[in-house]
């Protein structure tokens, strides 16, 4: 279990993490979601006692990081896969970490086996691809067989096979009763793995909710309709009390599960329809709406605010 209590980090005027309070529970995968620059990595560094909080407190299984005896046996973390001395072999990298925490030497071979790096264990780390470095970092996190695991953007730079592997690894670690805390800036990635979500933007807590609850609250369903007779269609919809908003490409969108009613209305009035589809906004979209006010680096697009909503389809709510 990881407990954050009013955790705050300021760099001069800039507030990187702002009074963050939440609890990361064991037995599930907790996703730590936020746009780039939201303060996820800073929070994780404070959890590990690497950065000193300006205010607030963080505890791992009830204790401060500095109080942990052999911390790698309590919490294992992958922060930055490239944080390895390039001239040292994978085996020696893990060996020096094991020795510092009194972990038996045999464990090094075990974790190398788990992450599939046995064949390159004696090679220098500077020759490793990003994916291999990522696996080495995960091996280091698993070394002490810890009850709490923390991964910062673990799927970055991995191939599809590697992504699949790490998703299953995180789920199995949680299923064993461990606390798994994993950060990402991609909602779609979290939707695949996380049971619980902690969302932050500009260092502030935006949501602390189960994945199911987040989907229920934020996944917006709507009906999309396109007709060569938009004026007549609008009249008919207005009469029936259905409000619509125009989409960027000239189609109309109505909130809720209204596709069937719109179809029936059109048939009754003899209006030609070129398209009628029930749709569900993506979780990515919901996440972007949630964090819209707090994104640090906005990209300006000429296409208008709706352009990202298209593309996703799905009839099942």
């Amino acid at each position, binding site marked *: 279990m990881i407990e954050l209590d009013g955790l705050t980090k300021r760099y001069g005027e800039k507030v990187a993490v702002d009074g963050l309070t939440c609890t990361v529970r064991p037995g599930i995968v907790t996703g730590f979601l936020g746009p780039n620059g939201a303060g996820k990595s800073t929070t994780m560094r404070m959890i590990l006692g690497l950065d000193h909080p300006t205010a607030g407190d963080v505890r791992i299984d009830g204790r401060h990081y500095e109080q942990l005896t052999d911390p790698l046996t309590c919490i294992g*973390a992958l922060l930055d896969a490239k944080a390895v*001395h390039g*001239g040292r072999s994978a085996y020696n990298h893990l060996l020096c*970490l094991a020795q510092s925490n009194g972990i038996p030497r045999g464990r090094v071979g075990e974790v190398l086996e788990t992450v599939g790096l046995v064949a390159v264990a004696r090679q220098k780390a500077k020759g490793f691809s990003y994916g291999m470095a990522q696996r080495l970092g995960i091996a280091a996190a698993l070394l002490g*067989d810890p009850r709490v695991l923390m991964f910062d953007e673990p799927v970055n730079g991995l191939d599809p096979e590697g992504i699949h592997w790490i998703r299953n690894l995180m789920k199995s670690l949680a299923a064993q009763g461990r606390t798994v805390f994993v950060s990402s800036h991609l909602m779609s990635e979290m939707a695949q793995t996380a049971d619980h979500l902690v969302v932050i933007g500009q260092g502030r807590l935006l949501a602390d909710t189960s994945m199911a609850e987040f989907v229920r609250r934020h996944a917006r369903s709507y009906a999309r309709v396109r007709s060569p007779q938009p004026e007549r269609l609008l009249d008919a919809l207005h009469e029936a009390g259905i409000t619509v908003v125009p989409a960027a490409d000239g189609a109309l969108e109505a909130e809720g599960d209204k596709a069937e009613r719109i179809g029936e209305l059109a048939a009754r009035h003899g209006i030609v329809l070129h398209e009628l589809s029930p749709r569900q906004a993506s979780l990515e979209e919901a996440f972007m709406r949630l964090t819209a006010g707090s994104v640090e680096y906005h990209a300006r697009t000429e296409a208008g605010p709706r352009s990202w909503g298209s593309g996703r389809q799905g009839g099942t709510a």
Partner: protein
Amino acid sequence: MTSVRTGRPRQTSPTAGVAQVLRSEWTKIRSVSSTGWTLSVAVVVTIGIGMLISALTRNEYDTMPVRERLTLDPTFVSFAGMTLGQLAMIVFGVLVVTNEYSTGMIRVSLAAVPRRGAFLFGKIAVAGALALVVGMITSFATFFLGQAMLGPYRAGLGDPGVLRAVVGGGLYLTLIAVFSMGVAAMLRSPLLSLGILMPFFFLISNILAAVDSTKKAGRFLPDQAGSRIMQAVPRADEAPYGPWGGLGIMALWVIAALAGGYALLRRRDAQ
């Protein structure tokens, strides 16, 4: 993957913790190539130049002024390579500390050993012990090989002050390396550390010694104070401290550098 621990905290005494850090740091230091090449350059350069200068001194002895002949310090002549050899020791000390920062390994290291004093002094103890072994080997080797070159003018280990000077040479190289580690812990960057330490030992010390008014201040620099112990024959322009006093002054510089490095490491975020 084994099953989850049952939450029983492992009983580890503080001394066991220190032993773990020392073992870990030894693995780190022996598993990178910079350790080998910096230390071998220190050995080869110190011995090579020492032998060369000793051989030249032997050849020129007959043409030397009488006063120089009388005050000839064969031990110190064989240590002529120390000035250059110490630079390799500086590089060793700097790289041992700064490679944690330049590779980002520091974050992994401090997550494994969160007590920052244990981490820093564990690292410096291991690197310092290695520097001591290499420094002693270098000092004794350069003495014996240098004396062999000096032929009839050689000193023996049993002559007054000679054993102290040779042991002192090994201590001097060790303290230079440890001083560099302390400075590197403060500065974190290898380029910045070398950019400050190299001229400090190679230029500033010599410049201060060249002018009479600054000469007195220069005597209290770590290298000038520390190198006094390597002289077996006392000089005329006696410094206001003896051989061990000089080494003590150098040790104070080392302690100051280590204290500064520790204070900053404790206070700073790890990056």
